């Protein structure tokens, strides 16, 4: 497979980034996409603030549904049957988990091109309580037939993935990772369903999605300083996922660590374990993920530290796996 080398951020430099764009790339992306695509409409259940730019430029195509997530999904389904391309912006714990049945029955079973842009995923609202954690969303979404699930690593990946999937025919969950550090200097080129290899190494494979990619990249630098070369992947596509890359990298390294701000059940950890099992590939397998137990409540930075979702947390687990 040939792939354009993604231009990556130098993690040791102070990168100048447009803060507004970085925190709301999905909001800016959709406003620009709607300039050229008259079928795009946006819907939201009380998350209109992230669509300020869109509302300014395309007021007639913005539909506020109030705090009524399930209704917003089914209303979008109706719009999609009439040729519109709805993007629903919502808080992931409510827009995805609460609406699982509407997403399945109205969108996925009917193959309708509705996009669920989930903001505030993982532990991004960790201080508000466990009701606001969204750590099972990937498991739920990827269990649904016909769904596509993508998890951009940073704002540049958001722009790239939203653009490149604009004309995809089925429903898509775009999992926006608020905890993500910048990974790419410019929007990287993705092939649908394929992962990007960000670094080559032979000692351990690091595969992340969303904020997990930035952690993997940063951890790989520290590992290199200790003589451990990591093979690093951006698993932006969680459904369909890149089974070939999993098998390839693990055959090279013999050890794989997944990194995600998601439950250890049903997310990337499961994807990798299932794929290795199905392909008869034996390897040392580990994960940095959220345990399947009652989770703590706190500000995101503290929670990431607590659960090892930090470069140091990844380095420690990777060293155990690499067995050097």
């Amino acid at each position: 497979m040939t792939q354009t080398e993604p231009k990556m951020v130098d993690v040791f430099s102070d990168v100048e980034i447009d803060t507004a764009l970085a925190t709301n790339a999905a909001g800016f992306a959709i406003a620009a996409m709607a300039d050229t695509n008259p079928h795009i409409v946006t819907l939201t259940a009380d998350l209109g603030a992230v669509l300020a730019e869109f509302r300014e430029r395309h007021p007639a195509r913005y539909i506020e549904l109030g705090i009524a997530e399930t209704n917003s999904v089914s209303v979008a389904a109706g719009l999609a049957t009439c040729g519109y391309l709805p993007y629903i912006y919502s808080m992931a714990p409510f827009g995805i988990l609460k609406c699982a049945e509407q997403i399945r029955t109205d969108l996925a079973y009917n193959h309708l091109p509705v996009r669920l842009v989930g903001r505030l995923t993982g532990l991004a609202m960790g201080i508000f309580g466990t009701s606001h954690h969204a750590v099972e969303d990937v498991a739920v979404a990827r269990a649904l037939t016909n769904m596509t699930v993508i998890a951009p690593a940073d704002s540049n990946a958001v722009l790239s993935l939203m653009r490149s999937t604009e004309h995809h025919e089925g429903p898509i969950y775009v999992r926006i990772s608020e905890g993500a550090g910048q990974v790419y200097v410019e929007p990287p080129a993705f092939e649908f369903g394929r992962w990007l290899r960000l670094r080559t190494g032979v000692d351990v494979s690091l595969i992340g999605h969303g904020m997990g990619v930035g952690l993997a990249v940063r951890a790989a630098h520290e590992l290199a300083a200790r003589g451990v070369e990591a093979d690093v992947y951006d698993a932006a596509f969680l459904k369909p996922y890149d089974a070939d890359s999993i098998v390839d990298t693990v055959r090279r390294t013999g050890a794989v660590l997944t990194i995600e701000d998601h439950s250890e059940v049903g997310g990337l950890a499961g994807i990798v374990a299932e794929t290795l099992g199905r392909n008869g590939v034996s390897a040392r397998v580990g994960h940095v993920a959220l345990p399947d137990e009652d989770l703590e409540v706190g500000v995101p930075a503290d929670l990431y530290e607590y659960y090892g979702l930090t470069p140091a947390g990844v380095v420690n687990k990777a060293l155990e796996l690499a067995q050097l």
Partner: protein
Amino acid sequence: MLERGRPITSAELNRRADWIRLQTVDLIEQAGIGHYSSTFSCAEIIATLYYHVLRLRPDDPQWPDRDRFLLGKGHVATGLWPVLADLGYYPAEWLKQFGKIGSPLNDHPNMRLAPGIDFSSGSLGHNLSVATGIAYAGRLSNLDYRTFVLTGDGELQEGQVWEAAMAASHYRLGNLVAIVDANGFSGAGPTSDAMNIEPLATRFEAFGWRAVEIDGHDVDALTRTFDELPDPSSGQPTCVIARTRKGKGVAMMEESPQAWHLGLLSPRLRDRVVAEISGRMR
């Protein structure tokens, strides 16, 4: 093209409703199980919509200007399949496959398999929301189609219905019509014994809708109500509360509607039911 307001006599509409009942008996027999009494309560509603009210092009099911019809109470699709075949959406032979693996006609409608189905249904409470989206799209596209959705009365216990009712009046969707087949029963018993849904008209009015209450078996009342729908520019969605009898048209089912919510007639009872319905059609 089938225009709106196609002329048809009341006697013909009544015969058509009974024909729907007979066809339903056949389809359920083929499948081995089905919803008799729920279908019988809305036979006149389906007949009036499809043979008088809706603007359709059966040879072009995706025609953007068509009136939309969503079967919220998807479990009565047995009443719709013969109608769509009769209007030419698909060959009548398709009905013979009903209940078999691979049939495009399922017990609940699937929009991807059956021409003429504007949206899939089966999970109660979704279709008023979907219809709200379709009605909104019509206005956004400057198309003058109307969107009709038939719900059961038990379905109104679903909270999402009221989220949709709120949104439809908030967005002043005068091109949206909900019809409640108010037969008074859900799967397990009288609807309002399980959870009171009355007074229906007042509730819809409180949500900003125009509400009309009629006898859902009176085809003249149905025809008049649909003929006199306000112009969509009125900015107010309409709810037609059709008071019906579950099992209507078959005495033993009217007497014990619950027993025939879901079931299969024995050959002896089947003959009796067919004779009763056919007797009226002569």
